[in-house]
């Protein structure tokens, strides 16, 4: 059994396709959705944890690739440029998982990348643009 957190990005034509249904039914995989969104341009972003037997998992990933779904491991997704962050803290209320939080003693902003689900809410809202998506 393996279990990985991954980010899927898919273009408009795929948004209304039952992709996850096929992963479950045809490849015997289970999933836990961490974050799903469809942007105004109808590009879908899905962050989820995918679990199953190794060969089923690999076959499922191949199926996604055949549909032109962009796949990336999600753990390295968002990084903070420590030289740019001013520790203002304006990001913390936008972070859905509290990966960004203020240490009330030092009043500095902590970034716990293990908690980050790479939703991207902090990226454009950071005034000095210290948060970046890494592909």
């Amino acid at each position: 059994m393996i279990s990985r957190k991954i980010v899927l990005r898919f273009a408009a034509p795929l948004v209304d396709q039952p992709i996850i249904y096929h992963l479950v039914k045809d490849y015997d995989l289970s999933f836990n959705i961490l974050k799903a969104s469809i942007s105004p341009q109808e590009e879908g972003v899905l962050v989820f944890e995918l679990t199953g037997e190794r060969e089923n998992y690999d076959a499922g990933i191949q199926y996604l690739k055949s549909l032109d779904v962009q796949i990336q491991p999600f753990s390295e997704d968002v990084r903070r440029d420590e030289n740019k962050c001013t520790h203002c803290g304006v990001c913390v209320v936008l972070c859905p998982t509290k990966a960004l939080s203020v240490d009330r003693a030092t009043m500095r902003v902590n970034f716990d990348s293990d908690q980050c689900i790479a939703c991207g809410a902090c990226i454009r809202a950071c005034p000095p643009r210290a948060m970046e998506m890494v592909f």
Partner: protein
Amino acid sequence: MPKTFQEINEKIAKGQAVVVTAEEIIDLVEEKGSARAAREVDVVTTGTFGAMCSSGAVLNIGHTTPKIRIQKAWLNEIAAYGGLAAVDIYVGATEMPEHDPLNSEHPGEFRYGGGHLIQDLVAGKPIHLKATSYGTDCYPRKEFEKDLTIHDLKDATLLSPRNAYQNYNVAVNGSDKTIYTYLGVLKPHMGNANYSSAGQLSPLMNDPFFKTIGIGTRIFLGGGVGYVFWPGTQHDPDPERNALGVPKGGAGTLSVVGDLKQMHPEWLVGVSLLGYGASLMVGIGVPIPILNEDIVRHTAIRDEDIVAPIVDYSDAYPNARPETLGEIDYRSLRSGRITLMGKEIPTASMSSYSKAREIAGTLKEWIQKGSFLLGEPTELLPAVGR
């Protein structure tokens, strides 16, 4: 026995001045009382680090051969004001390149504006200058282009008409859609409350009646040394105050000036405010000389004793209506949660308290080392009830 600026400066010059930060003075006054604290402490240092849109720089690019009387100028495609003498230009923190999409795709990102340009200049990065003119008998040149750095400029002066607001609004969004403001992204149905002040550490909270701050006050500015040269624009000398004399809203402001060439990019940071515009985060620290007991009492102000008005930025603010949703103290704001109309709301700050603390600490060190003397104001800034 009151002290004078001269007496304190003599102690600073000898390396004997007793200096504490605006956080440290709180416990000190609590323990020793204000009379003893006033005798023992010479200077209290303050700090703030936040987005200050009314910031900019006067640049003199030096005369060209043949000479040009600049009419229009752009630095990295950002327009600088050229309606001054031949090669003087002024660049403001919120100016954007003419081709920038701005808010045409809302919310705009404002990736590079005047604030970023000022930071790049201070960092010594190369900047592309383009200037045009109509040509005169004594200034015949009509076009000039050059890649330059701050070292090539004859003068580079940070000159900002309004910085260091004494107090500020707390912004919430009462509408049912996300809004994008200079106080950050505000989620609908009062999903968050954003503020922007270092509270008990903030310069003008510690001298609320301007008993020591005036024209000529020497300050920490952008990592270097600067000066207060005038009240800032919109300076309100007679705001509503709480029992301790601290304004309950905006109120006082500073005009500040300093040589950009001795400043540091860590303390002048270009910022992109999503859906709003570009700006400049500025680090400012003001030393408060403890001339008497009354002044030390003001510097002992605590976050829980300072309140800010809560304003709906989806309605009352844009429509210039004075109503507020109440007031809240900075201790609650800085805890990360406040309760408003029975609802618990997370808070976020647009200004950096940790950087403010660092500034107050740095200024304290400069004064302790004897390398930073106090500037005695020629005139104090306007305040009613001083």
